[in-house]
């Protein structure tokens, strides 16, 4: 029982990370109809911003050595700038393009960022120790929960509440929801398309920045493809949760986290290496049954 609860907490913690990534992706999809393949690479940028650019195996901390109140905003700022730049340079010129074109463009951005990081930092994974206290265990009842997992959970909750409030209570938030539903009509009413899109990229960037910190603290190492599995699980979470629905993205994130953790815990040892394969097979199963996702967006079917 204890073991199961531990696994559950692991699942929720992993699910939080996927939910945050999925939220970043879902936000851009809702407003722009863009599946941002480069989102994982935004996370990579945030992580690599922590160290000094070099091909050395042992990384020296750059921003990573700053105190937390400076570190967190700095990383988020860098990722936000990167996100806004990619929008301005690549996505804005192809605003009116079809979905496949947008997808491929984001794939190109992803490729460029990955190889750019590769060029600047070399191909060997780098060890980074952001916070050695991350794994001190906190006692909750009879459960031992690593500090980092608690922080992940709390951070996720705080961010989700913040975004929710932003979307519901602020005028920009309402404009974003309107633009996500009917971009052209929002424009006719004076909603500034580029501003709303910029805000979406910015929020997406902040989410990516936070994830990069959480993930790097946990994994302890960086590689130029570190964002790929995160993004992939998140895409799948968005699809499973229901494309175009933010709630769906979050639900999907937790669902994927649950599936992956449970498979990790309960698959027989010789099949563990195929955990990811099983996870995706399960996902395809879900899609067979509910192609619109678990929490479909309630606007017209053309969204998907």
């Amino acid at each position, binding site marked *: 029982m204890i073991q199961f609860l531990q696994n559950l907490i692991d699942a929720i913690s992993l699910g939080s990370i996927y939910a945050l990534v999925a939220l970043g992706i879902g936000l851009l999809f809702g407003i722009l109809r863009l*599946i941002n393949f480069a989102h994982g690479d935004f996370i990579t940028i945030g992580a690599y911003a922590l160290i000094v650019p070099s091909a050395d195996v042992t990384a020296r901390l750059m921003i990573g050595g700053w105190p937390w109140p400076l570190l967190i905003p700095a990383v988020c700022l860098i990722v936000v700038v990167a996100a806004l730049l990619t929008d301005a340079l*690549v996505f804005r*010129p*192809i605003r009116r*393009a*079809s*979905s*496949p*074109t947008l*997808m*491929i*463009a984001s*794939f*190109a*951005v992803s*490729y*460029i960022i*990955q*190889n*750019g990081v*590769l*060029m600047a930092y070399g191909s060997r994974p780098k060890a980074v120790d952001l916070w050695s206290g991350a794994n001190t265990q906190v006692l909750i009842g009879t459960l031992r929960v690593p500090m980092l997992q608690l922080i992940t959970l709390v951070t996720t909750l705080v961010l989700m509440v913040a975004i929710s409030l932003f979307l519901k209570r602020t005028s920009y938030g309402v404009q974003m929801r309107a633009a996500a539903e009917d971009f052209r009509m929002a424009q006719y009413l004076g909603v500034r398309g580029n501003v709303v899109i910029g805000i979406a990229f910015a929020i997406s960037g902040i989410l990516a920045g936070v994830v990069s910190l959480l993930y790097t603290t946990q994994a302890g190492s960086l590689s130029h*493809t570190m964002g*790929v*599995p995160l993004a*992939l699980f998140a*895409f*799948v979470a*968005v*699809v499973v949760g229901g*494309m175009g629905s933010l709630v769906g993205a979050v639900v999907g994130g937790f669902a994927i986290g649950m599936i992956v953790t449970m498979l990790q815990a309960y698959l027989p040892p010789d099949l563990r*290496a*195929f955990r*990811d*394969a099983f996870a*995706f*097979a399960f*996902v*395809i199963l879900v*899609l*067979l049954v509910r*192609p619109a996702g678990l929490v479909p967006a309630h606007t017209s*079917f*053309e969204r*998907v």
Partner: protein
Amino acid sequence: MRALFVRHQTPALLIVLLGLVAAATLLSAGDTLQVTLTEMYIRVIVVVGLYVFIGNSGIISFGQVGFMCIGAYAAAWATAEPNFKQIMLAGLPAFLQENQYPFLLAIAGAMLLPAAVALLLGVAIMRLSGTAASIATFAFLIIVNSVYSNWDSVTAGVSSIIGIPTVVGPWTAYVFAAIAILVAYAFQVSRFGLMLRASRDDEVAARASAVKIVRMRLAAFVLSAALVGVGGGLYAQFLGILTVDPFYLNLSFITIAMLVVGGMFSLTGAVAGVVVVTAIVEGLRFLERGLTIDGAKYALPQGSQEIGLGLLMALILILRPNGLTRGRELAPLPPAPAKTAASTEAVRLSGQSGTVG
């Protein structure tokens, strides 16, 4: 005879031109570019395979390289030395372990196994919307990579399968490339192809005739996997050594880039894209090695190839989203003058086009 050539001039011209490229390259550079040439023809097969699905259905598949991996390993299982297989790949069924099969049989396996997998996967995901299906194909790529990297007893995991007979050179690859072009062409002018293209641009209309579209997409998906698989099989028997690494994100990107640069919606685009991008990448590679002028060495930094390709792709998407061929087919020859069915068809075929919305 001439009427036949004109009527189907697109594939005919493409095949002839590709042959000329080979002749020209071999004449001018001799043996040094044989490897590049062979690889290029294999890429033609793969990208044409990609085109059969993406160009006709309008759905981007990021996972076709997974089928290339399956095909490559299928060929390797057939043709590697039995001694090697019995030690390293003990998980293979006996008939594979103990025997070494001829080239064509290996290619047949490289065609059929990916096609079978595509059939199973396609039944599941062809019903999804374009975007969701694309994500599913991306997941498929990762699954194949994960499975093949870890199933040590069958694929040697992260180490290599060696000793595959290297029977594939530029001319073999060329012949298969020509076949691939003909097959792709036959599909796109068939009823399946035409109906699929008609539904491609309007997903709502496609939904209205749901059942048929799914079946046609599935046909395109399976055919695509078969072609790409053959490419993989040839690749294995060209390199002689096989690992899982190449069949992942980089190659996926390169092949998609080739298709996009050439033009996603035309066969000419697929072929042209491979040739153009190969030329550019070779050029960048040469510049990375560097030139010595007056004793000083000028070289592009490592990794310029990749970034250059990425930038090229982004530029094409922004400036010429339909690719260099603008989605049109190569058809410069005027149709035969007679007012027969043949000439009207030639006009219809040469005017084939598609657009990116």
